[in-house]
């Protein structure tokens, strides 16, 4: 840790690690059914340097934003480091899945580019045709596309000298990366983080989880997500430990990949959104689990969506026979704006739980009860980590007492400096150095409990979905009365996450026609990378309006929930 603080610049830390542990695995690249590819610290830095030269040769300059749009590939990592090595900012974007309509994908990239000021796209040849219309458009900032996997020329003495000189001049306040926090389509909020913010986080979060040189982090998380990028990639790399990387697309098809990687690589730490605990517990047969051992694991960190007590229980029950240490189940509360974590369950005590009165809880009051019957069991997201402070505030941002639920506000040494090119959004959420998260929670005995969002937001498997995006899409389908749609999240207990449901008004009465409309709605959702799991078709004037005259999500959710009961 001391060396990390002394060096204080990510590139210098990576170089130090490559010199100190040249043959240690930096990245172990996993692919189902294949021998893992091991990339040592020395190889990673040498390759990164080659990409730095090649990118500079192409005209990429310090301060340029380079969107990286690639599938799981062993060269992703040196490319990413190569971008940082010339002072450009890498911004990892989600690779389009085959369901997503190309127009929708382009719309997302265009929106991001207008806001974030993307300069270059580093991608694969297979996306060339899809991306071409964006390059022809004058409505965005993108200057060109490069295909780094096809670069041939890496040698250039003059450029190498320039790059070396540049690297010597980096200071810790220099920005190092850009990541996108959630937002409605095309309005994702760009968060730029400095060397200082990330390094502070490595030190403080590392301390909170007792990170040591023998730890190994294993992850299937996508790197466009802060949990994947910061917790499972940047932190291990700065700390000089191994990060085992699994393809997110493969993991959802074969969740046992994570368990195989833990067993074979003797991993010690992994981070998962809540739904993944349900998937691992429920969707893998015992036959597939033969030979699995979790005895190397120190920490399973539940993060990115509200932690469900039942998910931990079923995971514990399933994997205790595979040498799971129940105390390794922990939780964290994190966000891109504070680099990553705000709180973390303390090792080695596992997660704290609390039984609260159910009725009072729905009114925003916390009353702890001893008898679990008729109560709600909540799982703590842990203690506030060092370098962070938390307040719980009301609508006017006044502090609330310990027994009340309110908005979580955070101050952190790893705080972002504001959203890039988005001052109006920045001033909405930042005040006197405090970041107002929009998340609801409370603190009891120094433990932070996160219970949901202030605004309507649907969190499906760790992915944030804005109801207004869904409503816009569905409103345009013939048969649905325009503007008379409500999208909401409904709890799916078996999955341990929310599902997207819609209530739509229609004049159609014929059942066959209604079945066709349902199919059209599901298809339209798929083209927008959305799975609409439940569709309630209702007659005209069914939806309850808010005082503003728009269909109220809250009132209609209650109405549909009463009918379902």
């Amino acid at each position, binding site marked *: 840790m001391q060396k990390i603080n002394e060096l204080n610049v990510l590139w210098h830390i990576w170089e130090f690690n490559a010199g100190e542990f040249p043959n240690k695995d930096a990245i172990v690249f996993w692919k*189902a*059914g294949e021998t893992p590819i091991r990339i040592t610290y020395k190889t990673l830095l040498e390759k990164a340097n080659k990409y730095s030269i090649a990118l500079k040769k192409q005209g990429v300059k310090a301060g340029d934003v380079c969107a990286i749009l690639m599938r799981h590939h062993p060269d992703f990592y040196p490319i990413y480091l190569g971008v940082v090595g010339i002072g450009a900012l890498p911004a990892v974007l989600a690779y389009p*899945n*085959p*369901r997503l309509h190309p127009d929708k994908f382009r719309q997302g990239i265009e929106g991001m580019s207008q806001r974030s000021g993307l300069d270059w796209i580093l991608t694969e040849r297979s996306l060339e045709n899809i991306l071409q219309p964006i390059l022809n458009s004058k409505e965005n900032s993108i200057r060109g596309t490069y295909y780094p996997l096809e670069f041939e020329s890496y040698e250039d003495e003059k450029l190498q000298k320039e790059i070396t000189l540049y690297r010597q001049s980096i200071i810790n306040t220099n920005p190092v990366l850009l990541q996108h926090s959630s937002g409605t389509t095309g309005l994702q909020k760009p968060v730029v983080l400095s060397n200082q913010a990330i390094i502070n986080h490595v030190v403080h979060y590392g301390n909170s989880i007792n990170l040591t040189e023998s730890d190994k982090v294993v992850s299937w998380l996508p790197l466009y997500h802060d949990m994947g990028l910061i917790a499972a990639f940047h932190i291990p790399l700065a700390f000089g430990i191994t990060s085992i990387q699994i393809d997110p*697309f*493969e993991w*959802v*098809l*074969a*969740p*046992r*990949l994570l368990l195989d990687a833990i067993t074979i690589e003797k991993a010690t730490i992994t981070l998962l959104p809540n*739904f993944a605990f349900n*998937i691992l517990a429920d*969707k*893998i*047969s015992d*036959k*597939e689990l033969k030979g699995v051992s979790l005895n190397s694991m120190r920490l399973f960190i539940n993060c990115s969506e509200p932690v469900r007590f039942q998910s931990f229980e079923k995971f514990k029950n399933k994997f205790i026979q595979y040498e799971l240490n129940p105390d390794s189940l922990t939780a964290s509360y994190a966000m891109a704006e504070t680099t990553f974590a705000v709180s973390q369950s303390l090792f080695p005590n596992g997660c704290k739980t609390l039984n609260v009165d159910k009725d009072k809880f729905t009114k925003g009051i916390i009353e702890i009860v001893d008898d679990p019957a008729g109560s709600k069991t909540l799982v703590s997201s842990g203690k506030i980590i060092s370098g962070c402070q938390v307040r719980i505030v009301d609508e006017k941002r006044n502090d609330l007492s310990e027994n009340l639920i309110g908005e979580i506000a955070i101050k952190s040494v790893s705080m972002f400096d504001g959203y890039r090119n988005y001052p109006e959004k920045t001033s909405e959420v930042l005040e006197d150095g405090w970041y107002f998260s929009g998340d609801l929670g409370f603190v009891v005995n120094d433990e932070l409990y996160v219970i949901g969002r202030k605004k309507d937001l649907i969190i*499906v*498997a760790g992915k944030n979905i804005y109801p207004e995006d869904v409503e816009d899409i569905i409103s345009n389908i013939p048969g649905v009365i325009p503007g008379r749609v409500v999208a909401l999240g409904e709890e799916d207990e078996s*999955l341990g996450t929310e599902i997207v449901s819609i209530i739509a008004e229609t004049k159609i009465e014929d059942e066959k026609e209604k*079945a066709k409309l349902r*199919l059209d709605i*599901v*298809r339209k959702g*798929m083209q927008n990378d959305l*799975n609409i*799991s439940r569709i309630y078709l209702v007659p005209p004037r069914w939806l309850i309006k808010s005082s503003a005259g728009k269909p109220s999500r809250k009132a209609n959710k209650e109405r549909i929930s009463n009918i379902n009961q």
Partner: protein
Amino acid sequence: MISDEFRSVILKELNLDDFEINDETTADQVPGWDSLNHLNVILAIENAFKIELSSYDIIKCNNIGELYNLVQSKLEE
């Protein structure tokens, strides 16, 4: 060619009354067959045909026809 039984297990799991699927159909073309539902579809197939499939074998399947062939090969074991 995929059997009617195989087709109906998939459609039932995805709550689809009627949807045309054939050997060349891929999961992303079937309404509701997303990454979260994928494992439910596989479990439904395993239960209906009383077999266990290896997820690493399933990953290699490029379309529904190949998934059906994998099921057939298990049934013949």
